């Protein structure tokens, strides 16, 4: 990395260690360009929120972080997403998407537990990493479920199907599933959009609890949620990064006109 790209990556006025930086990232779905030269940093142990109207590219950007776009033919990345401290460009075709996904966990919009038992769901990420020792797996499963604030509700029914849980419980199960292998970064794609307000509040609480101690997350969701739970906010519009700043700045004194229009509800 040359001096210029580093300067771009750390453009935000902060002195916290970086977990990743996005540098001139563009993305195409076949012929259609969905991201245009996106630049922003992701700070270690902070919650970074991506906000913007639907179709602005925030999910596309998030899914670039664990190469989900590789699953469908015709998609193309340009630019870099550098993961620290290894300094690997995770969107480079030379980097194995499996490796990226083993480092970065993801939770999706709708709860998507596997058609298996609660235990097997949480243990799945350990299994795929070759961790088979029963005592170790049991420990990690319990730890992850405790982190996801689900342990007490499911500890007596670990062998029953994950589909017997409520929507909110299923989503916390998916968070536990992502946390179990201790990923370097956790991506959350509108994790509460399919949930009721009470379940939403629990997940938000959980994200805030996890952020300082465990790892980094990116959340894309509605503005109120971003304001409540994130430290940094990136506002996106039409595939471009309009503004990136400390969350309070974005919501109290945005520098861009478009950001102000969006957060005051004038469009979006």
């Amino acid at each position, binding site marked *: 990395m040359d001096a210029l790209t580093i300067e771009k990556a750390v453009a935000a006025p902060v002195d916290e260690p970086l977990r990743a930086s996005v540098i001139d990232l563009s993305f195409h779905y076949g012929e259609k360009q969905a991201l245009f030269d996106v630049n922003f940093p992701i700070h270690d142990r902070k919650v970074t929120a991506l906000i913007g109207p639907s179709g602005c590219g925030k999910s596309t950007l998030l899914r670039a972080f664990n190469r*989900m776009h590789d*699953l469908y033919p015709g998609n193309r990345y340009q630019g870099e997403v550098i993961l620290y401290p290894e300094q690997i460009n995770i969107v480079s075709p030379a980097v194995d998407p499996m490796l990226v996904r083993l480092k970065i966990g993801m939770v999706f919009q709708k709860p998507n537990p596997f*058609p298996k038992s609660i235990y097997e769901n949480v243990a799945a990420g350990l299994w795929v990493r070759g961790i088979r020792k029963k005592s170790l797996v049991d420990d990690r499963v319990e730890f992850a479920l405790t982190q996801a604030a689900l342990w007490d509700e499911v500890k007596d029914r670990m062998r029953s199907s994950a589909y017997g849980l409520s929507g909110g419980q299923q989503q916390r199960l998916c968070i536990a599933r992502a946390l179990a292998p201790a990923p370097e970064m956790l991506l959350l794609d509108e994790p509460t959009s399919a949930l009721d307000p009470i379940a939403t509040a629990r997940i938000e609480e959980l994200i805030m609890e996890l952020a300082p101690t465990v790892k980094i997350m990116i959340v894309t969701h509605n503005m109120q949620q971003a304001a409540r739970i994130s430290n940094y906010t990136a506002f996106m519009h039409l595939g471009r990064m309009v503004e990136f700043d400390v969350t309070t700045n974005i919501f109290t004194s945005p520098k861009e006109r478009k950001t102000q229009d969006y957060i005051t509800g004038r469009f979006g």
Partner: protein
Amino acid sequence: MATIDLASAPTQGAAGGQLVASAAFLRRRAITGAVVRVFLFLAAALSVFITAAIVYILVYDSILFFQKVSIVDFLTDTEWTPVFEKPRFGIITLVSGTLMTTLIGLVVAMPAGTILSIYLSEFAGHRTREIIKPILELLAGVPTVAFGYFALFFLTPLFQIFIPNLSGFNLLVPGIVIGIMILPYIVSVAEDAMRAVPDPLREGAFALGFTRFQTAIRVVIPGAFSGVTAAYLLGMSRAVGETMVVAIAAGQQATLAYNPLEGAATITAYIVQISLGDLPHNSLAYLTIFAAGLTLFLMTLVFNLIAFWLRKKYREVY
């Protein structure tokens, strides 16, 4: 369907410009609805009636048969010689032939069908799938008599090169050919079930670092379990009922089938054979057709009940 007839149906409401349906219009709609309902009910009733009629005939003639032959002999005797002077009626011979060819067919078709379904649903690109699926469906359209002679005149001599003591009529080759015949049915149903597993489940697995194959085995197949089971049982029912291939290539000898290299008659092959001869109506040999048919029917029924139970037990609601 009924359209709003501006002259008679709607009347001008008091509020002015409001469209209000007239009584005559509503009545016409009710009549159309009733006619459609009766028509649909008759269509459904017809299929139930036909099934019931078949069962009635099978059971009725079987009762006549069992008035002359004890059911214990029928189930325990190991010889099947209904047209001999001293006839013996051990259905177990024919059942063993049927089970043997079915088993061989399933040993071929289940692994091949599962692998092919996984390939088509999880690995093949759109274009590859569009080429392979119609070809498979074409396989299902080949007349079974062609498969029968394919087994007898092509595959059996070919196999005899490698297995010298393989009889000209045997159970192995028809079993394999049955496996090939039921493959399209298994693939079609199993692949549909796998593709019905929602993409977010796959994405969840990939996000954890699963490979495509691990995703297929650990997530897609458990998710499609009831459909895949249904595919196997559909294939099994077809294999049990398959007639032409075994009638042509498995021989007519009603013996206890334990060696797949030898020929043996199956239930269906026996029914074909006995129906072709000129048997006096209501003779004992004639009545064996119905007893054998009822046995076949009960076997398929049991498989279907197992399928029904499995589907209910393992059905996944996403």
